[in-house]
């Protein structure tokens, strides 16, 4: 591993689901990378393939999904890796947390046992007692009050925000290099969302985590991500450093997402939202996948898939990348 090897690199990842022998791709050739200690935001509407893509990268795709492409972690190829070796990475070097903290904890196990399990799976020589001690420290790390008492409680005795803290504690139990957070705040109240993001951001910088932060909400990424990948219908349509993305959004979809960020300072009656809905699985329009919803679409957009253009590290896949930027501000 040399200095140029990214921590985590995905190349041309494809995930297809079959129905009656016909396979349709939910993830259609995604490429992205995360460096040590870097925060990559992935943003896109529901159904764009964010979860399926990241799960597939760790070998956790749903039954029957076909996964191709390359996923490298510290230079090691994960696609096709034996299950056993993947298991050793999961939860120790690469951790993942999910959207719904209400259902992502086992209801019949105490919170302490669940965290201790994560510790002991990768440190078999730890005693139960030592693992529980570690679990208590982890609860304190994510600022849960009275960790000693909380350890012995069951998930239903925790609020949504507290459960997500538990999930975070569990994820960092073995000091991972990469954390994939799949919409960690979507299911929570607005006030709690900010707290959870603070806990995550704090841990990320303290533990020097590479972090992939998946979200619907580009606004969340403004303050927390280093770079952002915008996903539409299973493809990355734009990728840039966060400030650059906000300053010069090159794709009309990205501009739509920026326009739909709720603005706390303005008393807007109605939130902007992009017209239409994303294409269903296996129902892609010809040409650019976004064209039916794009106000800039021309004939070429309905005919040809747009090429990716690269401009000083800012990648955009659009026939009319960066056009009409002035009118956006």
């Amino acid at each position: 591993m040399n200095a140029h090897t990214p921590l985590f690199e995905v190349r041309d990842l494809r995930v297809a689901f079959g129905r009656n022998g016909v396979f349709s791709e939910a993830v259609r050739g995604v490429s992205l990378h995360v460096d040590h200690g870097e925060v990559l935001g992935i943003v896109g509407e529901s159904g764009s393939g964010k979860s399926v893509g990241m799960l597939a990268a760790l070998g956790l795709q749903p039954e029957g999904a076909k996964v191709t492409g390359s996923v490298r972690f510290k230079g090691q190829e994960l696609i096709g890796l034996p299950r056993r070796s993947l298991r050793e990475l999961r939860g120790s070097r690469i951790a993942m947390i999910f959207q719904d903290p209400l259902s992502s904890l086992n209801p019949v196990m105490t919170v302490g046992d669940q965290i201790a399990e994560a510790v002991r799976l990768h440190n078999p020589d730890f005693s139960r007692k030592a693992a529980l001690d570690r679990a208590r420290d982890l609860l304190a790390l994510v600022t849960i009050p009275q960790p000693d008492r909380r350890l012995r409680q069951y998930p239903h005795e925790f609020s949504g925000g507290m459960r997500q803290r538990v999930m975070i504690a569990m994820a960092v139990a073995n000091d991972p290099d990469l954390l994939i957070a799949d919409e960690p705040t979507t299911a929570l109240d607005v006030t709690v969302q900010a707290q959870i993001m603070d806990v995550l951001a704090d841990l990320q910088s303290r533990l020097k985590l590479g972090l992939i932060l998946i979200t619907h909400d580009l606004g969340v990424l403004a303050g927390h991500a280093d770079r952002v990948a915008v996903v539409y219908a299973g493809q990355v349509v734009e990728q840039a450093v966060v400030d650059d993305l906000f300053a010069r959004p090159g794709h009309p979809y990205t501009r739509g997402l920026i326009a739909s960020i709720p603005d706390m300072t303005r008393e807007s009656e109605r939130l902007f939202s992009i017209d239409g809905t994303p294409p269903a699985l296996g129902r892609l329009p010809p040409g650019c996948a976004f064209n039916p919803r794009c106000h800039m679409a021309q004939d070429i957009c309905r005919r040809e898939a747009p090429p990716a253009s690269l401009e000083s590290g800012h990648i955009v896949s659009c026939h009319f990348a960066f056009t009409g930027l002035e009118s956006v501000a």
Partner: protein
Amino acid sequence: MTRYILRRLIAMPFLVLGIVTLAFLLTTVTKGDPLTAIVSDRQMNNPEVVAAAKAKWGLDRSLPERYAIYVGNLFQGDMGTSFITRRPVAQDVLHRLPATMELVIAAMIVGATIGISLGVLAAYFHNTAIDHASRLFALFGSSVPVFWLGLALLYVFSVQWGVLPGPGRLDARAVAPPTVTGFMTIDTLLAGEFRLFLDAVWHLILPAFVLGWAVAGTISRLVRANMLEILSREFILTARAKGAGEFRVVVGHALRNTMVPTLTVIGYSFAYLLTGAVLTETIFSWPGMGSYAVDAARGLDFPAIIGVTIVGGVVFLLTNLLTDIAYVVANPRVRLG
């Protein structure tokens, strides 16, 4: 929790009284005349003998009187005397209860073990040959009558192949150990007779399997359905993302979540097993309450019939209570007040 159990225990005597009353009333609506069991056919025409028998067994008194006397005696642990064995019913029943319990518990263990294993496998490998085979197994167990199954298996395994022993609790030549608990497996161990213990277990296998098959089928279907649902939950993904292996995911996380409904079904299957034991005991010459009950019913031995009903009822109530306690213990979200 303790309060809940106390409340249930306090309710017990009233429920038992209900069972006694019902059992008592049921014997009065049967057509048979118990006198035929007491008095020989030849003596039936002799009014003096009949009257004496009636007086001796209390059959000359009115129903409410008999009921009051019976309940009064029951309080002192007296269930009357069997018409047939001429021994106290309480003694007869207590003597035979352990054999039935041993059979029923063995059947429960067999049924739960096979049922849970099959259910887990069927869910994990759903829509494969394993799943279909387990469905057939369950269907077979619930549709084939116990007596047919018992005779068929006895014929194949014992008579034809000779791999499993025939009826009875021990080899016919074996000398039974002194009765301590009445459980042959335990008594042989207490006597330090390990060979006899193995023989007892050996004799248990076939009847326990015959009796437990239907329960295994029911449990396997329930476990399969629950497992399928649980395996699609997000915390299963969490467990895999932690690096847990499949065995741990399936048994440690998923199965553990299905234990509450499974325990309940296992507990309630007790009633089925108790009734099923009647036929199984008859087929396997098992000296338990079931075969006693069959003899009592054939002979219109009313005290014995009522005694068996009461003891069976009490056992049933106790297992239901145990089931409910297990339910609470296994489910952290339930707090009974």
